[in-house]
């Protein structure tokens, strides 16, 4: 897993590779760190090829800390199998303050509107 943070009006966590139980703590720590200071967060998983329940837990943690307190989290996913995992755990359903999309431009637009 490779992780890059872009600071700005809307912070971005850009992740590439495989997110599993072994490497996920780094992502969770970064989400916790940013959630203390922001009401908007873009998680760009465009280059993520593998995600399991640890990655799902990290996304839910972002939703809990930001979306459920009036903020907005947008998640960009391109890999169909990763999207299938998110579907199985219910993250493709409508969740207030959470946008799941395949298009980073749309994610940014939603965050700017909100």
């Amino acid at each position, binding site marked *: 897993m490779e992780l890059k943070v872009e600071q700005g009006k809307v912070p971005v966590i850009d992740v590439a590779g*495989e997110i599993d139980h072994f490497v996920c703590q780094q992502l969770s720590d970064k989400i916790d760190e940013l959630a203390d200071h922001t009401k908007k967060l873009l998680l760009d998983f465009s280059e993520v090829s593998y995600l399991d329940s640890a990655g799902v837990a990290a996304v839910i943690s972002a939703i809990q800390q930001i979306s459920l307190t009036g903020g907005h989290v947008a998640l960009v996913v391109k890999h169909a199998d990763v999207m299938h995992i998110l579907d199985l755990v219910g993250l493709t359903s409508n969740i207030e303050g959470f946008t799941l999309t395949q298009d980073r431009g749309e994610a940014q637009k939603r965050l700017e509107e909100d």
Partner: protein
Amino acid sequence: MQAPSYHKSWIFSAKGGCLNTVRAITEEAGKVCGFSPSDIYGMKVAVSEACANAIEHGSPRGASDTFEFEITCSGDELQIRIKDNGIFKPRSATEGAHLSTRGRGIYLMMALMDSVKLEESESGTMVLMTRKKSGKGEK
């Protein structure tokens, strides 16, 4: 009885770094046995979840513990057996009315495989999972 087209077994140290390896082995077995890429992906997630649990809960002595991993493909069925030294601890995916960040591993295993059996004994927990080519998850 038909001879298995793929059968290998390993003993891993209970360290997180082996998750990559178990996924690679599962991918190899799935390809040899003719499973589709999306089937193979689902099996990789299920195997990785089960092994993560074996490392986290099935290894009371930490990284000095080991767990057994066996994968067999016979006919149109792939079978995976994981045996550790501890107690399997499925968590709930909700905490009261709230979403929990944990507890989706066993759910994903069951959603992605045709059968998941847990057998507990004094010596540890055995997870036995099977997936048929014509099984669930076809997209």
